[in-house]
């Protein structure tokens, strides 16, 4: 596959003179190539930059008579679907410990783990030409082109299964005004242990109408054949894409942080990164759970009931047996949490302030501290 950078693409097209004066945007350059099929590959491994680039292409490139394929992979990240609940879908504590960010994409579907061993493919078309099965056929044909005996098949739910058993690819899509995009993952050599660890929620007692993931056993293509690495697979998919649609596009490298070629993209990445989007767009839900409180001498069971809307705690009722902690204290603490984010950092600050108000009593302080810590841990 011939790799070109974006600046090469400029030079190839008539726009090279224009870009000498004032650098053209990506969409202008694409229009001027006159090509009806293009393949782009991201230079970035940042999930937010890459999701922003998807949105940018969807919003700015004329896709009425044009198809585009975008190839990208990311440093470890968990990506949830548009209408999902991150507390329900993944292990936020482990993610925080390991510095794995949470991203919410604008397409539907379930939760996936990305790392550099996972390839992402986005197929951009007009709404009229939106055809997920055809896109997945590009992928399965590309894989069979590399290994003719490989048993890879797309299902009705747009998953790709290896040997009829293991999921190697999941799909999601977004339909806009006049254009659509369909993206899918492809597990080549992802860290499966880490995948299992982060995709397991530990938050109990959630009641929600958010869309839920359907867990599936997964496998890496590398497990099937050690010579199948991400680059080989990306090249093969790009080739097959050209064959399937009758294009002859080289793979053009794009830098998603290039504000000059992609005006507005940095703001889009910031929006995707913001708490208000990743956590705040969670559909309304409630938590109703019991948990243990321990100290040196005794244990008791406490209950927590919360309603959360836009990621903000709307109602909160923490009940602790009165012989463990005075009722007024747990009630006061509950009230302090209302209006705050369901966020361990913010709640820790509120808890620390609250602990300072408690009358000097070592045992009471320790019990209250335990309660605060337990509640923060749930977030």
């Amino acid at each position, binding site marked *: 596959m011939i790799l070109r950078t974006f600046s090469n693409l400029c030079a190839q097209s008539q726009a090279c003179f224009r870009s000498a004066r004032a650098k053209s945007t990506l969409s202008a350059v694409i229009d001027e190539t006159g090509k009806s099929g293009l393949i782009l590959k991201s230079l970035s491994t940042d999930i937010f930059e890459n999701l922003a680039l998807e949105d940018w292409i969807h919003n700015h490139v004329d896709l009425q008579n044009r198809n585009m394929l975008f190839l990208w992979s990311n440093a470890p990240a968990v990506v949830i*679907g*548009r*209408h999902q609940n991150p507390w329900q879908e993944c292990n936020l504590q482990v993610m925080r410990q390991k510095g794995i960010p949470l991203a919410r994409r*604008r*397409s*539907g*579907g*379930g939760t996936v783990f990305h790392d550099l061993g996972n390839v992402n493919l986005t197929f951009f078309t007009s709404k*009229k030409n939106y055809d997920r099965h055809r896109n997945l056929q590009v992928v399965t044909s590309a894989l069979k082109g590399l290994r003719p005996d490989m048993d890879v098949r797309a299902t009705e*739910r*747009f998953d790709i299964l290896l040997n009829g058993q293991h999921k190697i690819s999941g*799909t*999601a*899509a*977004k*339909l*806009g*005004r006049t254009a659509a995009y369909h993206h899918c993952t492809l597990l080549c050599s992802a860290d499966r242990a880490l995948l299992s660890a982060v995709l397991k929620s530990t938050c109990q007692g959630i009641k929600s*109408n*958010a*869309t839920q993931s359907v867990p599936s056993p997964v496998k890496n293509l590398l497990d099937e054949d050690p010579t199948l690495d991400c680059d080989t697979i990306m090249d093969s998919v790009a080739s097959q894409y050209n064959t399937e649609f009758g294009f002859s596009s080289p793979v053009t490298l794009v830098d998603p942080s290039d504000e000059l070629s992609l005006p507005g993209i940095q703001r889009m990445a910031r929006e995707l990164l913001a708490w208000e989007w990743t956590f705040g767009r969670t*559909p*309304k839900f409630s938590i109703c759970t019991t948990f243990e409180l321990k100290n040196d001498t005794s244990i008791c069971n406490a209950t927590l009931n919360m309603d959360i809307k836009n990621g903000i705690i709307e109602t909160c009722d923490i009940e602790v047996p009165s012989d463990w902690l005075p009722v007024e204290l747990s009630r006061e603490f509950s009230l302090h949490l209302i209006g705050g984010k369901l966020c361990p950092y913010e709640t820790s600050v509120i808890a620390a302030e609250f602990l300072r108000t408690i009358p000097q009593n070592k045992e009471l302080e320790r019990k209250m501290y335990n309660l605060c810590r337990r509640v923060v841990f749930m977030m």
Partner: protein
Amino acid sequence: MAMRVAFRCLTANFSPVLIQRSRPVQISANRLLWKANPAQSLSTASRLSTALKFTDKHEWVRVEGGIGTVGISKFAQEALGDVVYCGLPEVGQKLEQMEEFGALESVKAASELYSPLTGEVTEINTELAVNPGLVNKSCYEVGWLIKMTIDNPAELDGLMDDCSYEKFIKSLDE
């Protein structure tokens, strides 16, 4: 066509009470039609939708008493497949015409919703939180999405009536 438009202008000026009274007559006429010829169910459906205006994004709006009820068309719900989640705006949210106001999710695809008019959201269909499939089962009636004020009634003139919308859908196949 002109007569129908004139009639609609008149009804838009009627008080809500008058409009309420006229509805039962319309419904029983439809029931007679149904009994007379079940094969004419298509025309009955289109009779229901004569009060609707459509956008080219396949949303409809029905105006009653200065409030617009918004939903998606039969064509749209069929293309979507089974709706599993309705992402709707908040009551009080102000919308510009053609502004994105939410999304419907079906089989892993999120389909954006575009406001047919400029106005403020007065109500959202809370039934859809527990039964999003209503959008498929009854897209013109109980599967409505939002209700909104109509800040600029002239915008309605730019929308399609049912005949124009039918023609529009046919042209998409070509």
